[in-house]
């Protein structure tokens, strides 16, 4: 099924400046795989070399962090919104 993934500002240079991308998948992992296949440069920003999600990037399904759901296996359904929320530090 198609689910909307929200792209945060710092990662938009790698998604042709799109703020959201619709991708096909039944779980968060499937969605992120589809996303990084479409935009290969995103991959190193989301995953470390061992394939794990980077510790300064969190993935939410609606308002819940997947670390407290079923991680990458968290299933998604029609109408869910998946958000990529990376650490940003600006303030000055």
């Amino acid at each position: 099924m198609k689910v909307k993934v929200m792209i945060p500002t710092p990662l938009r240079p790698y998604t042709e400046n799109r703020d959201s991308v619709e991708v096909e998948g039944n779980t968060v992992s499937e969605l992120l795989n589809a996303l990084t296949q479409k935009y290969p440069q995103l991959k190193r920003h989301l995953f470390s070399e061992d394939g794990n999600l980077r510790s300064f990037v969190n993935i939410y399904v609606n308002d819940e962090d997947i670390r407290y759901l079923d991680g990458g296996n968290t299933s998604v359904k029609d109408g869910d919104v998946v958000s990529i929320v990376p650490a940003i530090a600006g303030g000055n």
Partner: protein
Amino acid sequence: MTNAGVVELNREEFLRYGRHLIIPEVGLEGQRRLKSASVLIIGAGGLGSPLAFYLTAAGVGRIGMVDFDVVDLSNLQRQILHTTKDVGRSKLESAREKLESLNPNVKIETYEMRLTSENALDLIKEYDIVVDGTDNFPTRYLVNDACVFLKKPNVYGSIFRFEGQVSVFYADKGPCYRCLYKEPPPPGLVPSCAEGGVLGVLPGIIGTIQALETIKLILGIGELLIGKLLLFDALKMKFRELKLRKDPECPVCGENPTVKELIDYEAFCGITPEQTLHQSGLEITPEELKEKLENGEDIILIDVREPVEYEINRIEGSKLIPLSKLPEKVNELDQTREIVLYCKMGGRSARAVQLLRELGFTRVKNLAGGIDAWIEKIDPTMPRY
């Protein structure tokens, strides 16, 4: 937050805070609480400006500010504490002047220094609440850890371009920053505001939300952003709220903490690609580059900034390949020739140099300090931004 009973308002203050006093949720008791409260603001810049103004106007009794910077012309697009005549002056001196003239009842305490693992605990323990308006990861982790150890609330805000995040980290009652992000990104991966830009109004919005949360904390009213992360997208004009949970495995506030004292946060956050290149001699100074160019040496000069930046200024003879486009354009580059890369300040081009080296390029160097250094040392007539 304490001793609200012992402070009294004077006649001037009754009138000054009249609009607060007539709200039942604030009232005289609330205004006394504000007067007996103390808040430490880290950073007198984009977030610090609106924060300090509103907390001072609201009558928080004692406000501390930490910063070590001087006002630069490029700050004024968003740092509303400072004005054109303050350029070159210490930010804290400038801040003190504005805040004392806004509300002489507030005690303004300034700390002209960098917050470090050596001084953070002594400083923070003197205040009820800390507000984080810094601009870098090492200081954010330092502020977080110090607040966890001292059991102080940390009103957090951060910004990038059109986007902001706000939360209240209060380990006694909810998650801390490390529950959200256990580790910082490697240096250079996430651009700073100086590299990526920030819309001037954005820190105004995020900073005032931080001020609001601080005042609610002091008054003990309403619902706080404890255990919630507020995301703001200025372009879409959308606020979204995400749930934050206390991570039982959090290294500072979890069940079995591994970090029990302040650490070396610069080391924790890693050395930047720029520092790495500097250490391994893979950089070139503006003077050296100028000499090579004047001698007609064969150099490919690549500008890895964005097209809008290239429009403002550029080193003659350079070719524009934005960092995000470099991987796809790499085949167009001749590995056998000498390549010099530059950006605004040397950070992005350092990453570009590393990228090319990983791909087997051996004759690549970073222009130390970027075009900013080139302007300073070689061509001061060029516009700066």
